[in-house]
């Protein structure tokens, strides 16, 4: 049974939904971090369904909305990458308190995966990490965002722009209208600077990095990230699921769920934090 609520962090009202584990519980709570901008709406069904799978398997869950997302206060563009990391850590604290968690695992999807990984670098109490197609290289990711913006302009039959012109707008005006809000210059710089395999140096718990076969260009970077975690002392498994991309508009309308990914992550969770026998 899910329990929606608001909580305060740094003077901001954030929204969360907890679900208690079904008995017998594992004592482990998973905090789920959502992707950037409209990908959050496009993957809402995925995180909701996986949270239900987790609860049925004995794991409590907390999903939450960052500043400017969902039911939380503010607008897209009010926060930065560091704000989201700080909010993820606040959500971990809320999960510990509300669900009396013995341990907390962070799970993140796309930019949420990056946020989860960066949060775990700061909180030694995080027990594990599940990273679904995290943003590994900021330069590639911002190119993807700008391509989406150009595609949206094309669909709207707005004035023709190039990627360089969009970057020029961000530099000149400090922000670019993007998916119902703004991609601000500071956030653009934060995202551009992501180089996740160089940024993980401390976390030493178990990590699962999962990608999908359709995104085969991520295999190399995912392995680099796994190597970085292993160097830091963590155990890291890379999972490649056969699911099709599940964070675009079409996959949402078609009701695509990454069931292979769900199964791989649940099995991995059970291997590390099983139900008490």
């Amino acid at each position, binding site marked *: 049974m899910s329990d929606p609520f608001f909580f305060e962090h740094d003077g901001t009202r954030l929204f969360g939904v907890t679900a208690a584990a079904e008995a017998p519980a594992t004592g482990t709570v998973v905090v789920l971090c959502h992707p950037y901008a409209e990908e959050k709406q496009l993957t*809402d069904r995925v995180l909701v369904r996986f949270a239900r799978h987790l609860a049925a398997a004995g794991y409590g869950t907390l999903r939450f909305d960052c500043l400017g997302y*969902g039911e939380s206060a503010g607008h*897209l563009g009010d926060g930065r990458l560091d704000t989201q990391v700080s909010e993820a850590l606040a959500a971990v604290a809320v999960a510990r308190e509300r669900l009396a968690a013995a341990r907390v695992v962070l799970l993140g999807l796309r930019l949420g995966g990056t946020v989860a990984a960066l949060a775990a670098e700061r909180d030694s109490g995080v027990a594990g990490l599940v990273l679904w197609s995290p943003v590994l290289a900021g330069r590639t990711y911002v190119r993807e965002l700008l391509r989406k913006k150009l595609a949206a302009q*094309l669909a*709207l039959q707005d*004035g023709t722009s190039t990627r360089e012109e969009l970057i020029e707008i961000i530099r000149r005006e400090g922000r670019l*209208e993007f998916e119902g809000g703004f991609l601000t210059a500071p956030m653009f710089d934060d995202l551009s600077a992501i180089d996740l395999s160089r940024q993980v140096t401390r976390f030493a718990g178990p990590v699962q990095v999962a990608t999908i076969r359709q995104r085969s260009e991520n295999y190399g970077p995912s392995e680099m990230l796994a190597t970085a975690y292993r160097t830091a002392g963590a155990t890291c498994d890379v999972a490649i699921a056969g699911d099709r991309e599940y964070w675009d508009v079409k996959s949402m309308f078609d009701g695509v769920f990454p069931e292979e990914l769900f199964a791989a992550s649940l099995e991995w969770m059970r291997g590390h934090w099983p139900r008490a026998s």
Partner: protein
Amino acid sequence: MERPLFFPSNGHRLFGILHRPETGRSSTAIVFLNAGPQNHTGPQRIYVEAARRFTAGGFTCLRVDLPGVGESEGPFPENNLDCHDPANVRGAVDLVLAEGAETVVLLGLCVGARVAARAALLDPRVQTVVSWSAPIISGAPDIIAEAISHAAARGQIRHWSKRLLQPSRWMRYATSHEARAEAVVKVRHVAAALLQRSPDQTVPRFVTEMGKLLGSSRGVFVAYGERDIGPRAEFEDHLGSLLHPERPDRHLLLVPGGDHTYAALAARDRVIEETLAWLSRRHPGGSTSSYTAA
């Protein structure tokens, strides 16, 4: 004040976010219905933005997750224009009436507009429908794009004819593979629709239902983005004559620069502000409540 809650409806346990104005209860409540499989926040959070502004204007709002969407349980909705059962809206109407509203408005975008219209026909307690970007026959482009209607194809031809003389258009097609690919798909759909032997001879069910709604005593606010070519053309062809411009309880808004989901911020602001202004005229009691907070 915003409050998350669950409530019963037609045998389901549904989730919603209830917004109440700072002054307490309002006599008019606006119920937001899901745009297909998109949760209670709406595409690009348009429902959150609209509900917050409507509440600041004195209205109560309830943003609902119908079965299978967002926080509500049930099978995920199928990809079709009538994926939501209008009977499931009844519990939301019960809820806002129990919260003190006397007048109920149903609001939806895209598929949400269709379920709003159909639910209003089933429930005499609904006085007003706000219909944003209702698809009349065809699906929204790029979403349910297997087929488009004859009317939508003609609308697309009219739209293209204005742009054929613009060199920037041709430059775009010459330089962008994505633009060419998109154009090929659209040309195929338009050609297929225009080459049908018996185009649109049977009146689709939703045309009849929307016609009934427009013929009733309920208030109806209809909005389309000016660039939402297919649905707009279908509405104008099949239902435009029923709007009766002399009736103040009917309104058609064409949003400059608006697409199907009013993705541009200026378009989003325009559709929200014009809707709020119209609702405030139609339901002035909504913003000057005779109720006090419980």
